[in-house]
């Protein structure tokens, strides 16, 4: 392990920072585009393959529409489209990007360590959400069609 205290003074600092900054920029641009274009209407965005094939919603269905609604200040509409994306995926994404940016710019933030149980719990929760949002009693709250 290197004992250099300030990561930003390393010669390869620019390269270390370039990837997270680039990913952040791409995601920001994609978010802005989703906010400008309207995924509620067909045309600008591809359909979900799983929904088209089966008629059932995947865990991400309604996600683009939720992002569109959020960008345009409609929190209730966003929650109606996909509460998991609004309450789970977007906060997790912001947390991951923030941690990544900090971990390459300062030595005080270590690279993120995800415990194994979290890595297993997230897919299990996703699978449960997948099933439950397609069930009749829960569809009005969890699916974009409800």
């Amino acid at each position: 392990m290197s004992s250099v205290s300030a990561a930003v003074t390393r010669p390869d600092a620019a390269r270390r920072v370039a990837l997270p900054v680039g990913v952040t920029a791409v995601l920001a641009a994609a978010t802005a585009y989703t906010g400008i274009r309207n995924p509620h209407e067909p045309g600008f965005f591809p359909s979900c393959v799983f929904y088209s094939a089966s008629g059932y919603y995947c865990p991400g269905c309604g996600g683009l529409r939720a992002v569109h609604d959020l960008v345009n200040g409609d929190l209730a509409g966003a929650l109606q489209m996909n509460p998991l994306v609004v309450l789970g995926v977007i906060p997790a994404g912001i947390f991951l990007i923030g941690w990544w940016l900090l971990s390459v710019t300062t030595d005080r933030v270590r690279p993120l360590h995800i415990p194994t149980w979290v890595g297993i719990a997230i897919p299990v929760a996703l699978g449960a959400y997948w099933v439950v949002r397609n069930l009749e009693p829960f569809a009005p709250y969890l699916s974009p069609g409800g």
Partner: protein
Amino acid sequence: MTQVPPPPPMGMPPVGGDPNEKNKLGVWALVLGILSILCCGFFTGIPAIILGINGKKAAEEGRASNGSLANVGFILGIIGCALSVLGFVLQAAGVLTYDFSTS
């Protein structure tokens, strides 16, 4: 110190290396695997599979401590790929129709 030790040869694990050096592989595999389930299909599923395999390999070589995380990403990537391939095959076969943006 006047003499700089040569860097370790490519592809060889450094002896007594950092056991967390390659942990980012597992984290990336998991994140991309989850995204492949969230409608992204093989766009992130294929990278998740590749990173998952590399992450498991790194764990075996003692350069990562999160081999199980890499394995989860690997499996999620396969599921995401399989579902999207299945969807595209059904679409090509004319079984399904696109009617609405649902992603």
